[in-house]
């Protein structure tokens, strides 16, 4: 091994050590590697829409049971902030007790609507598939029947 090759080997070892020290792929690449992309729904195939719809339905399902969250109530005032926030929370809690009766009904409705959508989606998909199968079967029968007629006609000539 000559001097240059020794130098290269030393550099390689140094770079390997540095590589092992870096956890983040971005740093290794030396640039930002991730981007965000819009979903072009109008270009989606049925299968892609199906997957998208299932994802969306499960997201809706999570939202269906949402309730107001009083933990988010805060005040920007320095000194009076804490008592004001406490007061706001108490007031909201009292209001929510009244609202809960109404909200329970709303949540029940939301959940049933989501379930219904899901069932309808599945049932329609199954029905379309069954209809496609039936049409294919009928088309096959037609071809076979025509073939038989042609054969009989040829025999009679």
């Amino acid at each position, binding site marked *: 091994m000559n*001097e*240059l*090759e020794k*130098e*290269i080997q030393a*550099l*390689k070892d140094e*770079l390997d050590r*540095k*590589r092992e020290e*870096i956890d983040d*792929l971005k*740093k*290794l*690449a*030396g640039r930002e*590697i*991730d*981007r965000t*992309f819009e*979903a*072009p729904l109008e*270009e989606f*195939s*049925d*299968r*892609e829409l199906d997957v998208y719809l299932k994802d969306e339905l499960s997201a809706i399902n999570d939202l269906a049971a949402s309730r107001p969250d009083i933990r988010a109530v805060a005040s920007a005032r320095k000194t009076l902030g804490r008592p004001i926030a406490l007061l706001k929370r108490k007031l909201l809690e009292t209001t929510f007790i009244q609202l809960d009766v109404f909200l329970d009904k709303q949540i029940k409705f939301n959940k049933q609507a989501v379930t219904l959508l899901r069932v309808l989606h599945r049932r329609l998909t199954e029905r379309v598939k069954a209809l*496609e199968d039936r049409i*294919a*079967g009928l*088309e*096959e*029968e*037609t*071809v*076979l*029947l025509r*073939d*038989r007629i042609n054969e009989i006609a040829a025999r009679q000539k």
Partner: protein
Amino acid sequence: MKKTREAASGPELAAAVRGLLRRRGVQAAADELARRELRLGLRRPTLAVYDHAFHFIGGAQKYGLTLTSAIQDLFRVTILTNRPIGQREFREWYGLDLSSCEIKVVPLPFFEKLKVVHLDPSFVTREVENPFHRVSRESGRYDVFVNNSMNEMVYPLARESVLVCHFPERRPKSYFYADDYTRVVCNSRYTAEWIEKKWKFAPHRLLYPPVDMETDGAAGPKKKIILSVARFEPGGFKRQREMLAAFLRLCRARPGVAGEWKFVLAGGSNPGNAYLADLSDLAASAPAGSVELRVNIPAVELRALYREAAVFWHMCGLMQEDPGETEHFGMTVVEAMQNGIVPIVYDGGGLPEIVDDGINGFRVRSTAALLERTLALMRDSGKRTSFGRAAEEKSRMFSRSVFEASARTIFSEILESLRSAAPPARDR
């Protein structure tokens, strides 16, 4: 002269590499060092070829490994896998000698925890850390990185990188790096068209898959066999069920014509495949000896089937509007044609690039049309012979030798490019 000048500049080299290390990071410095080493002829260029499914038998994997075999004398090759696999399997499954290549396993703990056989990239969402980053890191250790997976979640760190796209399954979303590869090679015009539609860029090269099912000598006498060769996909999108149902209807309605014919469905399957069980039940209702399911048969048996069969059915794409569930190319159709079998295929996907309707086979859009064409062929042995000859002629376009020559051209260009800093040109 160049070699002497660079050989004499050891300290300059160290300064240049360390300068790059400070300014642009480890990978850029490693790339520069590798480039200089290659220019000085100090070592052979290195190439890694990766597929997350190398531990399965598959058409895409055969493509990647045949490519590797064709260029293994140009590079020092490492085959990257995520699960243990050996040279023996590659030899048995594809008849390829890759003994000059090293095999390196890069385990992915994310999938190990899931205990799944198939490392499905669709399990990886934005909410989880990208498990394929381990492969991305490894890619930076080679001069050339070839990603043969249907998986564009691997970020290429090598200076020259090739994404072999068998089909753009995903649209660009989380961890999408397809356009970070220096070159994208696709397997058919159909795939190229969908890369442009989904990924919004044109691939660099079209390289049709290698097909090497030619007969050793003259094809023997054909028997009255309709053959289908396709993987028994649990989702059923190869459409074996529809073909089998059509054949059974044919046998029942036209016993005088179809009575002596047999339908053989050959293909690979994983254990516990419910779709295959369903097919077996359906096959049990067929007249005795008229239907055969041949699962995971060795290559020698498959060759015998190809030699004997007269008609080939392939209906992948039927009743499917999703481009991903249509045949992206159709290797088994070419295999059949190489053996003088008349193909009747679905008129969609990459199949029109192989079969010219009414010239060397037939393209149909329904099982009814499939039966119509089949009945005509069943009645006319002369037609079967002439179409079989035309099919054999067309299949030469997709031979292994044509593939290997094209692959070597692509990778010779890459070798040239490795020694320069110029970006590759898109030439499609």
